């Protein structure tokens, strides 16, 4: 395992040198001679820690999935409140969304992590983490859903009204089926953001993917190995979600196009 890795490194090193010396001819002072950066990169340690990374990856996947489900629930309720004409519903929803969007997720996470026990709710870190991600992402999901519903042309609402539909019938039969298609791509975008945000849960010692990288980095004093590896795994997750987004948009493309009116 180590031999091809070395081989790969030396080839990379060679090309780096080639670039450096070709540029050196132009501005020698810009490129002082340094030890090559990948000299000590240890693939062996990464392989050794692979089971830990695997566990972290699995935890990240399912806690993100749960958090996204929670975010959808929170988002639907907030969007429904935000679309009401009554200030009684709109003001709290808007205040909540503003508060979430204006503050860092890390602050929100610590707020729950240290705040909930003071209120008498002592929950496992994992539950606090999922709660924080759901409540945070829910605010963004609410805005996506609201935008999706508002993007449906006014004429659709009027057509429903004119044929004697009630508000609930219009929503169920006319608006929501159309809004659903519009919101799928941005919702998947939000899911990608949520997966990356879940890295912050490592700070309240949830043993997810980033935590695995941190452990490697601190056990062996190898930050590059730890964090480049988790970055690669996040990239993998990103491409999975992106593939899902592609599939869904192809599926939506087969459905009838949106009104030309």
């Amino acid at each position, binding site marked *: 395992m180590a031999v091809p890795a070395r081989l790969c490194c030396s080839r990379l090193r060679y090309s780096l040198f080639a670039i450096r010396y070709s540029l050196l001819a132009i501005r020698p002072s810009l490129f002082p001679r340094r030890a090559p950066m990948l000299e000590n990169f240890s693939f062996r340690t990464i392989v050794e820690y692979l089971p830990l990374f695997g566990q972290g990856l699995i935890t990240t996947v399912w806690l993100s999935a749960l958090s996204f489900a929670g975010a959808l629930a929170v988002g639907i309720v907030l969007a429904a409140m935000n679309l009401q004409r009554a200030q009684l519903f709109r003001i709290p929803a808007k205040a909540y969304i503003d508060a979430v969007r204006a503050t860092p997720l890390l602050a929100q996470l610590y707020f729950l992590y240290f705040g909930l026990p003071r209120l008498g709710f002592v929950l496992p870190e994992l539950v606090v983490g999922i709660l924080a991600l759901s409540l945070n992402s829910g605010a963004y999901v609410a805005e996506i859903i609201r935008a999706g519903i508002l993007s449906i042309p006014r004429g659709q609402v009027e057509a429903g009204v004119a044929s004697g539909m009630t508000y609930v019938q219009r929503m169920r039969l006319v608006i929501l089926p159309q809004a659903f298609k519009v919101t799928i791509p941005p919702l998947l975008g939000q899911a990608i953001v949520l997966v990356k945000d879940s890295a912050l849960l490592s700070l309240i010692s949830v043993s997810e993917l980033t935590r695995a990288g941190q452990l490697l980095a601190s056990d062996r004093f190898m930050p590059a190995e730890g964090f480049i590896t988790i970055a690669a795994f996040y990239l993998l997750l990103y491409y999975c979600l992106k593939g899902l987004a592609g599939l869904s948009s192809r599926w939506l493309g087969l459905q009838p196009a949106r009104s*030309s009116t």
Partner: protein
Amino acid sequence: MSTPSPTKTGMIDFRGVSKWFGTLNVLKDITLSVEPREVVVVCGPSGSGKSTLIRCINGLEAIKDGDLIVDGQRLGDPATNMTQLRTEIGFVFQSFNLYPHKTALENVTLAPIHVRKIARAEAEQAGRELLAKVGLADKVDAYPSQLSGGQQQRVAIARCLGMRPKIMLFDEPTSALDPEMISEVLDVMVAVAEEGMTMMVVTHEMGFARKVAQRVVFMDAGAIVESGTPEEFFSAPKTDRSRAFLSKILRH
């Protein structure tokens, strides 16, 4: 408030109706009565309040002053069930407003099934018959995006007819269409009129007005300026404003 005629009420009865958009007075003291089975064409320059006038009838716009009585029910009265009343009033939009996620047949049957509570099989049979009647028997399963403008508007008319309304309102039904598609829509509207539907049609299609309208109402700046039979109106307009308007639209 104007004094309503005490004896008879029409199918649609405007009695001194006024409406403002902010400070803009879009309807000024409109008094107009449409009898059952009557076809009234409303014309006038852009911004004269024609569309607003017919949008008030099914409550898409609320009136400010006066009384508007539709099918014996006063709009704005707490006793009037607007949702119920709207099922009796078909409305055809300038931009069709078909449901893009539903097929032609589903567009026609959606409200009958969910609002009128008609059994699905029965509604679908009626829907197929209506689509055949507007000449779209072969487009039953097509989505609106697969239909031309004229075809979409005919589906929209079938969608209204599916509710078996007492009144049909048309808001510039041919204005968004290419010229060669206008006649296919007008033909359907003529057929509906000849079956005895009470209709108010905002249009500049003077051929249609001559053929089926009992009355032409000319509006300008939110008021009814002139009203008469198509023959009177087109051959001998009484006011300068209607003469000027007619000279503009008939020149081409």
